C-alpha cells in the first residue's frame, strides 16, 4: 500500500470513496496515476456488516444538516459516511439512462419553473462506458450474467403488472452476483441489501475498487479524513486541500488535480466553503449554479395488505422492476417517466414506521398485525431541476470543525406532483387487481438519490462542469459524483455515476500525460 507525502503535489486528490470517487480512484491507479483518497467515514470490513437496525448508525451521514421545503428539517437525506460511501447502502439497481433522457430540454421542451437543460454528452458518448461499468459491477442481465431469481415481493409485483397490462417487468439489472464472480459469492437472498451486504455479493467500492486500487501501489486511502476546504494559487488553479484527521488535527495535502465526490450535498458545500477573495461565491461558481438544481428524484412508496402471505423481508430487496412507465409520453400529463421497483418494509419496527408515518390506533394496529401479507414498491422517476431547490451554507449552524453545515431546500414542481399521483394510482390498481384489502401510498423517505448540484452544461453560464466533469472555471478541479448530473432521468443513478467516473479517469489520465493539467 502506498503512502504519499503531504507535500507531494504530483498526486490526484479524490474526496470521497463511493460510486464516483471509489471508481475514479481505482481507474486512475490502474493507469499508474498516484491517488490520495480522503474519505470522511470509517473503514468497515465485511465482519462489521450485520443484518439489523444497528447498521444505520454505523454507515449513515449523521453530522447535522438542515432541511426545508418538503424535506425532513433534521435529516433531509439519507446518505452514507463510510468507506465505500453510499455503495455500502445502495440497493444495487443498475439501469442505463435512456437516450432521450440526455436531451431533456429538447425532448420535453421548456417546462415552466424548471431549469431544464440537455446534457453536454449523449447516450452514444456514454454507451461504451456503460459497457465497462456493467462488466466491472457484474450487472445481472448484461454480459451473459443471469438475472436473479424473484422473491415473493417480486412475484406479487409481476402478477399485478400482468393483470394491469404492463409488459416490461423482470428482476432487474442488479449489481448483485447471481453466481460467483470477481472473487465474490452469489446472492443468498438475505434481505438486508440496504444495511450493507454481509456476504459481499452486492457490488460496493468498499471491497472491490478500493482494495484493487491499493494493490496497484499507486493509491492511498485515508479514512476519517474530512475535507474542510480546497486551496488555490494566484493563477486560480487548485493546489491542495485542507482536511481534519480522526483526531481533528488539520493537515494540508498538496495536489496536482482535485476531484470532488462527496455526494450532492457535501460536494457543493465544500465548493461554497472554499470561497476566497478570488472566488467570492465559492470555487467553480461563476455561473452561480453551484448548489442549485438539487434533484432527489421523484420518489414515493406504496405498501399493500395482500390476501395471502408475502413475507417481503425475505430476499433481495430491489430485484424487481416494471419499466413500462419510464417512457416519455406527453399524453399522461407530465414530462419524463418513472420506474416501479420492489421495496421491502424494513421489517419491524420499519413497517409501522414507514407505511403510514405517524399512524396509530386500532385500525392501523390491525394492518400492522397483517405484516406477513404486506407487499411494497418504490417509485423512482425523473424530477424537474429547479434553481430554488438548492444546497446553501447554513447561517445558523456549524460543524465541529467550524464549517457551516449544509442547508438543503427542496419543493416539488407541479410536474413532480403529477407524476407521483399517476404512479400512486397505477400502483394501487396493480395491488388491488390481486385483491389487496388496503393500500398505503406514502411520500418520499429522506432522499437516498441526491443529484444535480454541480451540473454538467455545454454553456459555462448555465452549469458548473463540462461533459467530463471538469469545472468550467478551474481546469484541474473535477466533479466526480452524481452532483454533475444535468438532469436526473428515471433510473437509479449509481451505474451512470460509475460510467462517468470511468470516462473521467480516461480523460484525466490523458490530460495529465498531455500536461494540460
Amino acid at each position, binding site marked *: 500500500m502506498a503512502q504519499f507525502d503531504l507535500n507531494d503535489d504530483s498526486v490526484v486528490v479524490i474526496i470521497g470513496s463511493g460510486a464516483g470517487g471509489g471508481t475514479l480512484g481505482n481507474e486512475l491507479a490502474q493507469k499508474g496515476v498516484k491517488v490520495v483518497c480522503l474519505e470522511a467515514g470509517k473503514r468497515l470490513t465485511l465482519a462489521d456488516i450485520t*443484518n439489523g437496525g444497528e447498521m444505520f448508525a454505523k454507515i449513515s451521514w449523521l453530522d447535522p444538516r438542515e432541511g426545508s421545503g418538503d424535506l425532513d428539517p433534521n435529516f433531509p437525506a439519507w446518505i452514507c459516511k463510510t468507506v465505500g460511501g453510499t455503495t455500502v447502502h445502495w440497493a444495487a439497481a443498475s439501469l442505463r439512462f435512456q437516450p432521450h433522457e440526455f436531451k431533456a430540454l429538447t425532448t420535453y421542451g421548456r417546462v415552466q419553473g424548471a431549469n431544464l437543460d440537455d446534457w453536454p454528452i449523449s447516450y452514444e458518448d456514454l454507451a461504451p462506458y456503460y459497457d465497462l461499468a456493467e462488466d466491472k459491477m457484474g450487472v445481472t442481465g448484461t454480459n451473459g450474467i443471469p438475472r436473479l431469481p424473484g422473491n*415473493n415481493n417480486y412475484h406479487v409485483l*409481476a402478477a399485478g403488472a*400482468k393483470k394491469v397490462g404492463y409488459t416490461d417487468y423482470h428482476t432487474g439489472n442488479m449489481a448483485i452476483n447471481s453466481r460467483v464472480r470477481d472473487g465474490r459469492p452469489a446472492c*443468498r437472498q438475505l434481505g438486508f441489501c440496504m444495511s450493507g451486504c454481509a456476504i459481499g455479493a452486492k457490488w460496493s467500492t468498499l471491497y472491490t475498487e478500493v482494495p484493487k486500487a491499493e494493490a496497484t501501489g499507486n493509491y492511498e486511502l485515508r479514512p476519517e479524513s474530512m475535507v474542510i476546504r480546497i486551496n488555490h494559487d494566484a493563477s486560480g488553479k487548485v493546489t491542495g486541500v485542507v482536511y481534519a484527521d480522526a483526531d481533528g488535527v488539520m493537515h494540508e495535502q498538496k495536489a496536482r488535480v482535485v476531484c470532488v465526490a462527496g455526494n450532492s450535498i457535501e460536494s457543493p458545500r465544500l465548493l461554497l466553503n472554499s470561497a476566497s477573495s478570488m472566488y467570492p461565491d465559492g470555487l467553480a461558481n461563476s455561473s452561480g449554479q453551484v448548489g442549485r438544481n438539487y434533484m432527489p428524484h421523484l420518489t414515493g412508496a406504496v405498501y399493500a395488505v395482500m390476501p395471502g*402471505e408475502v413475507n417481503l423481508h425475505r430476499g433481495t430487496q430491489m430485484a424487481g422492476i416494471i419499466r413500462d412507465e419510464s417512457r416519455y409520453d406527453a399524453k399522461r400529463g407530465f414530462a419524463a417517466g418513472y420506474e416501479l421497483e420492489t421495496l421491502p418494509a424494513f421489517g*419491524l419496527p420499519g413497517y409501522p414506521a414507514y407505511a403510514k408515518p405517524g399512524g*396509530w390506533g386500532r385500525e392501523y394496529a390491525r394492518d400492522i398485525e397483517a405484516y406477513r401479507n404486506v407487499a411494497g414498491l418504490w417509485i423512482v422517476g425523473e424530477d424537474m431541476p429547479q434553481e430554488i431547490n438548492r444546497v446553501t451554507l447554513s447561517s445558523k449552524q456549524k460543524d465541529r470543525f467550524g464549517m457551516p453545515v449544509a442547508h438543503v431546500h427542496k419543493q416539488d414542481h407541479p410536474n413532480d406532483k403529477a407524476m407521483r399521483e399517476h404512479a400512486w394510482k397505477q400502483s394501487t390498481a396493480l395491488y388491488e387487481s390481486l385483491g389487496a384489502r388496503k393500500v398505503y401510498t406514502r411520500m418520499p423517505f429522506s432522499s437516498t438519490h441526491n443529484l444535480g448540484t454541480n451540473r454538467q452544461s455545454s454553456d459555462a453560464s448555465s452549469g458548473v462542469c463540462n461533459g467530463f466533469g471538469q469545472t468550467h472555471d478551474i481546469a484541474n478541479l473535477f466533479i466526480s459524483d452524481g452532483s454533475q448530473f444535468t438532469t436526473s432521468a428515471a433510473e437509479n443513478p449509481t451505474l451512470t455515476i460509475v460510467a462517468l467516473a470511468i470516462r473521467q479517469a480516461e480523460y484525466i489520465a490523458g490530460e495529465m500525460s498531455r500536461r494540460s493539467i
Partner: protein
Amino acid sequence: MSNEDLELRRREFLKIAGGSAFMSLVAGAGFTALPGTAWSAHHLKALSEDEGKTLLAFARTLFPHDFLADSYYGNVVNAVDEKAAADAALRQQITEGVARVERLSKKNFGDQSFHQLGEKARTRVVKTVEGTPFFSTMYGETLGGIYGHPDVWKVLGFEGSSVEHGGYLERGFDDISWLPKE
C-alpha cells in the same frame, strides 16, 4: 359526554371485568396471546405511579394489540421513566403531557382518569394531543418498544437477522402460493 360514550364505557368495563382468562381467548387477529405479567408502576424512578398508569394506557391506545399483555407496554413506560430520570426537560414534558391528558379525560369523561376510559374515549383524548412533543415522545418510544421486541416479531412474522441462517435462498424467499398462475 354523549350517551354513546357512556355505553362504550359500560361495554369496555364488562370486557375488562371478564378477566384475563377471557381476554386471552379473544386475543386479536387469531394470534395466541403472549404470556406476560401484569405491570406495576410502583418501581418507577422519576415518574409517579399515577403517571405510569396514564402512560401505560397511552401506549396501548397508540398501538392496541389484544395479544400483548400489559408488561409489553409497561416496558415502554419503564424506558420513558429511565430517560426522564436522566433528563429534567423530558421529565417536565412527560409530567405536563400526562397532566393535560388527565385534564382532558376528567373534563370530558365524567371525572375519570385516562386509564379508566374505554378505547374510544382514550382515542379521542390522544387525538387531541397529537402533534405535541409529549405525543411524539410517546409515539417514538411505543413504536420502537413494541415493534422492536423479538416476541412481537415472532407473532407478527418478522424473522430478523438472516445471515447466520444462510439467508432465505433455501428458506422460503419465493414460497408464495396464493397468486394467480402466471
